[in-house]
């Protein structure tokens, strides 16, 4: 007999984007992040400052036996 326990863990992602060339990268959400904030990072392709393009959360169901 096994006991299945389902729990949900979630991860919030911040999407950074270069508005000039469309380059995007993803990192973990940090407190203080908000969409359209210019971050301290530049585009590796053209050196344009990156902005936060979106913040979303992914829920993952975990099964423990």
């Amino acid at each position, binding site marked *: 007999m096994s006991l299945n326990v389902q729990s949900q863990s*979630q991860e*919030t992602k911040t*999407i950074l984007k270069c*508005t000039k060339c469309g380059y995007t990268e993803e990192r973990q*959400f940090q*407190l*203080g*992040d*908000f*969409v*359209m*904030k210019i971050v301290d990072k530049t585009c590796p392709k053209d050196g344009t400052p990156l902005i936060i393009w*979106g*913040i*979303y*959360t*992914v*829920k993952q169901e975990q099964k423990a036996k």
Partner: protein
Amino acid sequence: MMLFAQADQGGIYSLISTLLFIAFLLILSIPDIQLGFQMWRLSSIVEKELGEIKRMSDNARNKLIDMLKSLNAKDPQGLVDTLAEMFVIDPVSVEPIDIISRMRHLLRGGESKIKSLIKDSVPNADPVTISKLEVSAEVVNALNLVYKVVRHYINLAKKLKSPMLMYQVQMVIPILKRMAEAYSKAQDTFRDGKPVGDSLGPLVAARLMLNATRKWEPAEETVAAETIVEGRKVIVVKALGPLATVGRPGEAVARIVEEHNGQIARIITVDAALKLEGEQTGSVAEGVGVAMGDPGPEKIAIERVATKYGIPIDAVIVKMGMEEAITDMPKEVYDAAEKAESLVRKIITERTPVGSSVIVVGVGNTSGVGQ
């Protein structure tokens, strides 16, 4: 002889157990006993659920107290008690004349009262923190109300010894518990300044504002920006981010239309909408009318000004569940923002002439979404 004696003893036991069983059935058939048993069973089920709702309500209070303490607030416990019991009385509806302006007056009065109570307690807090505390106070207030209403009906059912009333509580309590769970999770999302599902409208608006030539505040906590889309002047309106606020989009749109003497080709509203069970989160739909979950004053302001000048109103909605709308924005909704933006651009290019002016309103709470 021994054998007969044993058989007799067995018969007596069997007779006694049969009589006890009949007596038990007779007792159970007494209406008062049945009623008591039903009430005991039902109340044990609903009281367990009520305990869960109370736990969520207490947690929300404690989180708000912790937030206030971290900002060195004056009397956090007293402030939270006041905010938890705050209410706004509905305007008189048997006399409908002027009901919208009376409702607007009362709703804004309620908002400003909460804001001033918080500002008095934490005078040095910035506007974003104040808005987070306001939303947190709303969560505490809502959870406190749900708990008190459920407790009221349970106590009333017990007092009246009414299993029918208790059955009604038992039927409705899973929905209320789900609602309470959603509110409970929402408090953490707003505290961390993340976008919620309802921030979909402001997210689309913020992206349209990206290359804006001019930005201004047409109403309190509301921002407008002017941009060009395929030769059309597009005025984009959203709540002022990243505050956790919905702003005053109705008042802003009415003012902008009047400033343009009604020379607006179209008003397009973009908002999150509650999905029906079975519908996909993030599905985009298009319709006619003001997409806005407002109690009345903001929505009617757009309807009135659009009717006055004969401006067509489009609605672009993205569907999601109630919990998804007030907690962390799910990936499906984030992905839908791009589709909604494309649809808005398509409406602008296909249904308005080059050189005309269009208003796009990103409706919803702009928590975690700037401009």
